[in-house]
């Protein structure tokens, strides 16, 4: 039982694959930068702004604890945002690429890449 061999270079160049990667990256890259910055910002404040973090917002509730709770909110919100985008945008695009590669339409990729060659010079 041999594994099917796909022309990965051609798939990689196909507009469907490029669209998938572009769409996913346009969310994941800024989201990753944001969450790392927000988290490390919090850690830096904890290390270098102790008095600010220990100051009270309301009785025993400190600025530090409020900011800590926003980290939880950030995780839940980013998690849901990514899940929705992936289900709505990325999965159908990925499925399209897989279907085209597996679907016994070898000409399909050639036609589509040929059609876009004018716009995307190599």
């Amino acid at each position: 039982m041999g594994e099917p061999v796909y022309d990965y270079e051609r798939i990689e160049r196909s507009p469907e694959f490029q669209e998938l990667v572009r769409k996913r990256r346009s969310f994941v890259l800024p989201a990753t930068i944001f969450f790392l910055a927000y988290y490390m910002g919090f850690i830096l404040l904890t290390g270098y702004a102790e008095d600010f973090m220990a100051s009270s917002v309301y009785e025993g509730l400190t600025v530090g604890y409020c900011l800590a709770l926003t980290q939880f909110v950030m995780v839940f919100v980013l998690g849901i945002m990514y899940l929705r985008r992936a289900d709505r945008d990325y999965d159908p695009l990925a499925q399209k690429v897989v279907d085209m590669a597996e679907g016994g339409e070898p000409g399909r990729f050639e036609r589509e890449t040929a059609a876009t060659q004018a716009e995307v010079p190599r």
Partner: protein
Amino acid sequence: MRLFAAINVEAVVIFAIVLSVTLGITYWASKRASSAVGFYAAGRQITGAQNGLAISGDYLSAASFLGIAGLIMLYGFDGFLYSIGFLVAFLTVMFLLAERMRNAGKFTIADVLAFRLRERPARTAAAIGTLAVVAFYLIAQMVGAGVLIQALVGIDFTPAVILTGVFMLCYVVFGGMVATTWVQIIKAVLLMAGITVMSIFVLGKVGFNPIELFNRAESNTGPETTFSLGPGTFLANPIDTVSLGLALVLGTAGLPHILMRFFTVPNAKAARSSVVWAMFLIGFFYLLTTFIGFGARAFLGEAGVAAAGTGGNLAAPNLAAFLGGGEGTFGGDLFLAVIAGVAFATILAVVAGLVLSASAAVSHDVWSNIIRKGKDSEHEEVVVAKIAALSIGAIAIIVAVIGGSGLNVSFMVGLAFAVAASANFPALLLALTWRRFNTTGAVTGVLFGVISSIALVIVSPKVWAGADSVTGSPIGWELANPGIVSIPLGFIGCWLGTVLSTERGAERTYHELYVRSETGLGAEKALVGR
């Protein structure tokens, strides 16, 4: 040898229930764990929600439950920092690795590296990274298990460690990933239920007003207290705080037993949904650690600090006894026994996951692919995996017994996270995303990461802070957490190795890994049926 001190009867009954249920599951699972894909990956038939629960069960160790609750009781805000780092880490896993790992991998971290790099050096490097992380993490958990069972049930340290080790090996050897997964799911449910009930009891005592709990915790401190609602009590050096923060947020994405869980689901979509499930479960759990830690501080006070022992590990069980009506009452003893049972299930689930990931690295990577070069049968590989699990388990039991209860658990867990973040994470991330990355880069990166994090921990003041040590670290190194140096070193190692070597044209190209990891084209399929 004295086997038993003062036995807690309720705790023994609850431990027996936990053990018999999990052994029953192992018997049921044993029929499904004979093939390689069954043994390592539960046939890839675990659903997203089940895997989310299992990830929580795999991830939330006794260090998370008892350790963080204790740290919050002792130090307040600084203890809570761990909770946040451990949770935010799942964004790293979700955005950068989970789906790609599922699409590109088979059973181990090394599969992903070996996909486009030269097989033998890449697998060797990945196996070194995996075994280093598991060694530190596993010994820490075994020592923790011994200390806890001794304190909570009255069984002595050595038999307690052996008991834990033997049951852990039963799950792994007879039930493989199927049994391990279900032990982790049961543990996650028990742990969530336990901490929720405790939190409701704690909040009930302060009229369900969390602010009142904060006030009471702050006022119930003595003049010499370490507790604070602000930072700087546990982590006094700001650079150390940043260093720890980095290791926590990147380390989870390099933990082999967590990453291995993504191979147990049918596809990338299920891998993704399992991370989101895990995030919500783990986030909910870590939010509640506040109530347990602050509750212990508010109700047990400065007297409770001494009773909580080293690192505050007994804060949560002591709080449970208090909430149930106090030590010596039926309610108090019962609640204490239930929480002890939950802690025991917690440890069993984590150590089983760790041993399974290490045995996969030994059999699938070292034996099958490096020594036998893929010429062995699937049956042989599974047999070797079981032998590897038995050997790793035996070594862990022996080291934990010899090291004894004096081994510092949180220090070893910290070391495991530092190695994971500095060695495994850079190599994996770059293999999946950097077109130029090559075998030399992976090998140097892993070695830089492993060696620098271990070396920096050896010279850290934590290791040299014994009674004889006047100066602390022998070379004046002041950081307890190596991450801020070792993580960049891991990445630099990957980069240097790549640009300095002339190697070109790995076995399979980056095109294939790239397309496969992004789309799932050609990814390993789930077993059909059942």
